Each structure stands twice: as structure tokens, then as C-alpha cells.
């Protein structure tokens, strides 16, 4: 599963880790994140993320 980087603050969403502080279980792909999920560091929306190369 691909990692995604926040274009605003540089936070990396790693599907293997998830975002448990915000109720996202490990193993959740970026696409499967809810539409209103926000960057846990800076609050950016999902469309502010790009796939990590």
C-alpha cells in the first residue's frame, strides 16, 4: 500500500501505521480514509496529499 505525503507540512501517512489518534486502524489504505479525514499535524484535507515516490 502506498504512503502519502502532506503537501502542506510534510507528514507522511503510512497505511501500515494508520492514524490511531483519530480512529484509523493500521492497515487502512489512503483511499479508504474517510473523506473528512485531515492531516493529524496540520489539518490539511485529503486532496492536499500526494503519493510518496
Amino acid at each position, binding site marked *: 500500500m502506498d504512503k502519502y505525503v502532506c503537501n*502542506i*507540512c510534510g507528514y507522511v501517512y503510512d497505511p501500515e501505521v494508520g492514524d490511531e489518534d483519530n480512529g484509523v486502524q493500521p492497515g487502512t489504505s489512503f483511499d479508504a480514509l474517510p473523506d473528512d479525514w485531515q492531516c493529524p*499535524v*496540520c*489539518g*490539511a484535507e485529503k486532496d492536499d496529499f500526494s503519493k510518496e515516490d
Partner: protein
Amino acid sequence: MKPVEISKGVYSVGAIDWNIRDFHGYSTERGTSYNSFLIVDEKTVLIDTVKKGFEDQLIDNISQVIDPKKIDIMISNHTEMDHSGGLPRVMHAIGEQKPLYCSKMGFKNLSQHFRQQWNYHGVENGEELNIGSRNLTFLETRMLHWPDSMFTYCKEDGILFSSDAFGQHYAGFEMFDDAVGHTIMAHAKKYFANILMLYASKILKLVEQVQASQLQIKTICPDHGIIWRKDPGKIIDAYVKWSRQIPEKKAIVVYDTMWHSTEKMANAIAEGIYLEGVAVKPIHIRSSHRSEIMTEVQDACAIVVGSPTLNNGMFPTVADTLTYMKGLKPQNKIGAAFGSFGWSGESVKLVQAELEAMKFQIIEPGARIQYVPDDAGLASCVAFGKQIGQAVNSRNDE
């Protein structure tokens, strides 16, 4: 500085730092101020503190208005130490158990700066706090410019306490935009270029939200520099303009040089750009400060970067400038590279790779000259400059 009443019962009580010239690598030729705001109501509130070392000025100013022990609530809009450094002294003076309001990220971040177990209240975006005759609203402004950043808005006075946003590194007895005049805009622009440019898209969204919410903003109180009371719309409009990053018909030729060869190239390229009717400025890196260079980058269309080759690499000061520039994410630029070299000449390729990484539109090929440029070499630099000038003009014709 003495406390200054901004609105009935609202005071500016912060400190002036006349002598600072290097603010974490940003040149502050006019010093700065660490602004702190006191609101005296049924509950008395202090918004932000000062940098460590300036607490005496702050406590003294507060004491001229009210006994610090009578402060009921501390609000931290921003964790960075130029505003939180005074917290230990202030919390000690007002009472360690007094509530300390901050954003949720502010709570996390302050806890990693200070080990005291303060009585934190992490607020939600839009949460309100009644302090008697006034209602304060907390507005999360994450990444403007730290994750913890927030604004505090006072509806009754129409005051936006905007943390670092709309600030300027400027020390002066003038406290307001109407007192200082238009010269302050250059300081505000430099602040934007060096602290906020990379969050331009966030700023545009925030301004849209604020305009949609129809907050009445009569006065903006930033944490540095003067207060915008005569025309707060002016600085908001400037932020929108700077955030859009629509370049002007302007180029800068930023370079360093060892034996004046790259300098000769820089001046010839600048001449070529000028001949195309584009405003241009050659900037020698070691004669300027990186934060001054960034202010020029802000509205330039073409960023032309020159480096001699040193030990098979880029000249270190050029790497400094490019690293700094890249972090601030300038948008919509044209880029070009040049440089003199002795035997290997890697620098032009390396500079160009950095400009490409910033997604600049590159004018190729970069100009390389071995050892000292002769007349033909300089003529080729003028021609390269013309090519760059034409690219700037075609952008402006679009």
C-alpha cells in the same frame, strides 16, 4: 515601552527588542517586538507572552495596568518560543493553576517545550469563551505557521489577535499602521516571504473562510510589529496578493563568485534581461542576506542562479540560498543556471537540478564558461539573458 490602550480595556503590553539582528537566520535590521495583549474585563486575559529575557518588560507593563495576580486566563496563540518563552514567569506571576488556553496542537507542543503541569484547556476550532462583556472566539490556523497556531477574535471590539500572521519584524515607538506609514509594508512583505510563503494555499483558504464568516475586523493585532487599525483590509489584501504569487515583470540574478568570472557572467546576463525591458537586479549572495534574497524572490518572475564550481560541487553559499529558497516553495517561477568553472564544471548542472526540483520552468541550456569569460563568452551571456527576458515577457503576455 509603556502599555498602550488599543481599545477600551484592551492593552498592548509586550516588549521591544531593539537589538536583535538575526532572528533564527532571518535578518532583522530594524529589530522586532514580541507583542502581548491584556484584556481587562470581568475576567482578565493575557494573550501570548514574550521571548525569554524580555519578561521584565512584560510584567512591568502589565503591572502598570493591573496586578498580574488578577489575570484569570492565559491564552497561547502560538507555541514558538518568541511568544511562549515568557510563560514560566507569567504563570508563576499570575498563579500556576490559572487556566492556559491553547489549541489542541498547542497543548501537545507546549507540553514538549515546558515540563510544568499547567492547567491546559485545549480548545476546539470556533470555541467561544465569555469573559464578561466580551466573547472571545478561537480560530484554528494550523500551519500559519506552526501546527499549534491559532487566532483569538474578540467580537465586541472587532479585534483579531492574529499570532504571527500579518506581523512584521519592526521595532519602533510607533504602535499603529497610521503612525508608521507605508514603509511598514516592506517589513510585512519580508515577513511573508520568509515565514509564510510556503503556506500560501492555506492563507488563501483562510481568507476565503474569514470573508464567508463575515467577521467584522476593525483591528488586527499581530505578535510582531505594529497593529493594523486604520486599514486592516490593506494587509489582508496584500496577503492575498502575495499568496497568489503572480510574478511581476522582474528577474533576479543571484550568484556567488570566487575570482569574479561568475560575477562577470551575472552582470552580462542581467544586461541581456534588461535589454528585453524586464526589471532586473544582480544579487551577490555574500553581500546580501538570504532573507533579503527571499524578499526579492517573492515577486520575481525569473530566478537566475549562478555558481562557480568548487571541488566538483556547487559553491556552499549558493547551496545555502537554494536550500532556503526550496523550503519556502516559491511558485510560478522561471529558472536558469550559469557559472564559471576551472576543469570539471559540475555546478551548473547541480544548480539546475535544484531549480527543477522547485518546479521552475527552466531556460536551457545553462551558461557555462571555463575560467575567465572573453568577449564572445560575455556576448553569449547577454544572449542567454535576452532569452530569459523574452520568457518573462511571454509569461506577462499570457
